């Protein structure tokens, strides 16, 4: 069932027509969703989709090329600020500002990729972390240009006769962008470039011997992942309505990394699942005492042995615990678990 007969079958997007039909049904479902749902759910979906875009980008770098980065919050910020500044100061229309922010972020990705060529493991982690922090710092302190710590209010998006201001209107835009970028990511992986990335990850020296230009492909990986992250950041600015250097800190970079690792490295579906899980955990764990069942137990413990004032910290405990459990018990991440379920179903009843 998984054997391909020729090259075209290998790079086809859907293995057969049934798959494509189900996929179109899913898309139709998502397009019609906001008609019924509340604003809050649509907002969460917007966040999830933005994180999916970023996770896709990170996956290209981390999962497929084997480089680690803890500095992607910097690209996220660059994307957000670029599009807002272009729209407010230079009156660039949104349809140009969005790709522009991706390109500017990609440029900085290139800058980061160059020193990263020589670094491995913890050294790369520190270098990327330092880069991320430096970007945020510069944005925070270059007041005249970036609005400093006061932050900037993002303008509503308008193109043609449309003005996108509410969550539901933004949803359609973000959905379209996410779909487009997911398909683009899948295609990149299946192409020559993707195979070069995988070769670099598996053994960079061997890759170089067969003619994969390490310099070119490593920096390209950084640039592409920065592009994705920049687009995500730009959209985030519009969803939040207000950007401020404080939003883009080290915790955000860590969350991005967690999304790809927990979701499953080296798989597009994995990044999507990881983004969904981490976003939902982050947003939903903000009200500990009201969680059914568990909440009462936590309150009881808090009154006896722990402090009542610190009760919200249980969210950190739960979050960390889930992350650890997934990595320990399913090293391939959520995608790995999904694969196992899929194969179980296919082989049932054996």
């Amino acid at each position, binding site marked *: 069932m998984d054997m391909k007969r020729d090259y075209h079958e290998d790079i086809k997007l859907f293995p057969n027509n049934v798959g494509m039909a189900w996929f179109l049904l899913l898309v139709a479902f998502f397009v019609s969703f906001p008609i019924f749902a509340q604003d809050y759910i649509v907002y969460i979906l917007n966040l999830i989709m933005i994180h999916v875009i970023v996770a896709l980008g990170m996956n290209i770098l981390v999962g497929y090329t084997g480089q680690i980065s803890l500095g992607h919050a910097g690209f996220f910020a660059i994307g957000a600020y670029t599009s807002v500044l272009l729209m407010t100061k230079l009156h660039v229309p949104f349809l140009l500002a969005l790709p522009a922010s991706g390109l500017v972020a990609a440029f900085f990705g290139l800058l980061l990729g160059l020193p990263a060529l020589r670094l491995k493991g913890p050294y790369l982690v520190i270098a990327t972390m330092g880069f991320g922090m430096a970007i945020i710092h510069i944005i925070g302190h270059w007041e005249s240009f970036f609005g400093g710590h006061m932050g900037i209010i993002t303008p509503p998006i308008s193109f043609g006769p449309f003005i996108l201001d509410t969550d539901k209107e933004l949803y359609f835009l973000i959905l379209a962008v996410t779909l487009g970028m997911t398909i683009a990511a899948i295609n990149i992986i299946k192409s020559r470039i993707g195979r070069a990335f995988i070769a670099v990850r598996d053994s960079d020296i061997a890759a170089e011997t067969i003619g994969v230009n390490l310099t070119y492909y490593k920096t390209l990986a950084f640039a592409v992942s920065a592009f994705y992250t920049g687009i995500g950041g730009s959209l985030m600015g519009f969803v*939040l309505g*207000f950007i401020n250097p*404080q939003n883009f800190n080290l915790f955000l970079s860590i969350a991005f990394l967690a999304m790809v690792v927990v979701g499953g490295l080296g798989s597009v579906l994995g990044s999507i699942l990881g983004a969904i899980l981490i976003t939902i955990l982050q947003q939903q764990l903000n009200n500990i005492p009201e969680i059914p069942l568990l909440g009462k137990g936590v309150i009881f413990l808090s009154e006896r042995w722990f402090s009542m004032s610190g009760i*919200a910290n249980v969210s950190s405990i739960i979050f960390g615990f889930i992350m650890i459990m997934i990595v320990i018990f399913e090293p391939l991440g959520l995608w790995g678990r999904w694969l196992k379920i899929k194969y179980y179903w296919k082989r049932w009843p054996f």
Partner: protein
Amino acid sequence: MVSNYLKSVLVVFPFIISLTFFFGHSIASEIGVSEDTIKIGQWSPQTGPAALWGSVARGTDCYFKMLNAEGGVQGRKLKQYIRDDAYQPPRTVGAVKELVGRVGVFGFVGGVGTATGMAVKRYLHTRKIPWVGPASGSSRWANPPTRYLFALYPNYVDEAHILTSYAYMTLGKKKIAFFYQNDDYGKEGLMGAIETLKRYGTKLVGEVSVEPLDTDISSQILKLKMSKPDVVILWLLPKHAAMTMGAAAKMSFKPLWMTTSTLSDAPLMYRITKGLWDGVMFDSFAELPDSKTPQMIKYKKAHDEHAPRERWGMFFYAGFLFAEPMIEAMKRAGRDLTRESFVDAMETIKNWNGGIGHSITFGPNQRQGQRSTFLGKCEKGVAVRLSDWLEVKK
């Protein structure tokens, strides 16, 4: 192949059905006021680097419990919904949208943080949702004034004005330096100080900043010392203020220290600086913890009853202060409480001293309720009042 098809259908359908939980009860008609309950929401940094200020929301909670024990407001009990946003604006937005869409709150009270509040300001305004007492002294809440947002915390610029004038005119100290946190909180204070001194025809002898996450401030203290000031105004987080005392003591640097209301919790500061805080002056926008006014005694009793394990400190009872005008307006609006009648009632509050703040005034275009603070001093761990309420008049 048919059975394979059937299997995948069986897997997908429950998934689709489970998603229907997202659909459903839209909260269009409900506005948070029912026969016997009023729902109020607050976002609060219960975890994360700003968790110190999580006690504000818990203070409001205690206040509501106290009021409910007395029968509530106009026969309705108050229910507060606290959401932890860990001081991160994306989570604040999520929390607010959840409270508005799913829970259906009447309005919001408090809410620590400028960046967090700014992220939801426009959303709340377009939906005409009242918001009283943001727990931050940014001048952006009331300036320009908007219909549904009522600020209480005297803004940082005004506070800096009061502190600087007191130092310059009343105490006669001419050489003033400013040590501030490098974000909008510190910078607004800096702006206020510079403006004030400009009016007196002079300027600060030193301006030094520190980053929120810095743990080493020795070079900053050295710079301050080099500018040889009589007074140093601190506009920092409690942690850095405490570190400042230690570092300055090491270098035998002993100017007169003055701080903002954020650092006015004298017993706490005295304790964590191991006594070095003695003699520091501060300004405060609420009564001091040992104050014997009837309101404070009543609140302290409520604290002992409903939240005994929480420390009785400034941030905690600030949670009372931010909600007081809201309750007053609800009383004035009467039993027929709508968002519009609430806002109209808020605007009738003039020079109100029914709470632990001072002279709260709102009006048709006036959204900065309190513009006065008073000076106090830390004497051996006890906050002692130095001056009467000083009001900024512009």
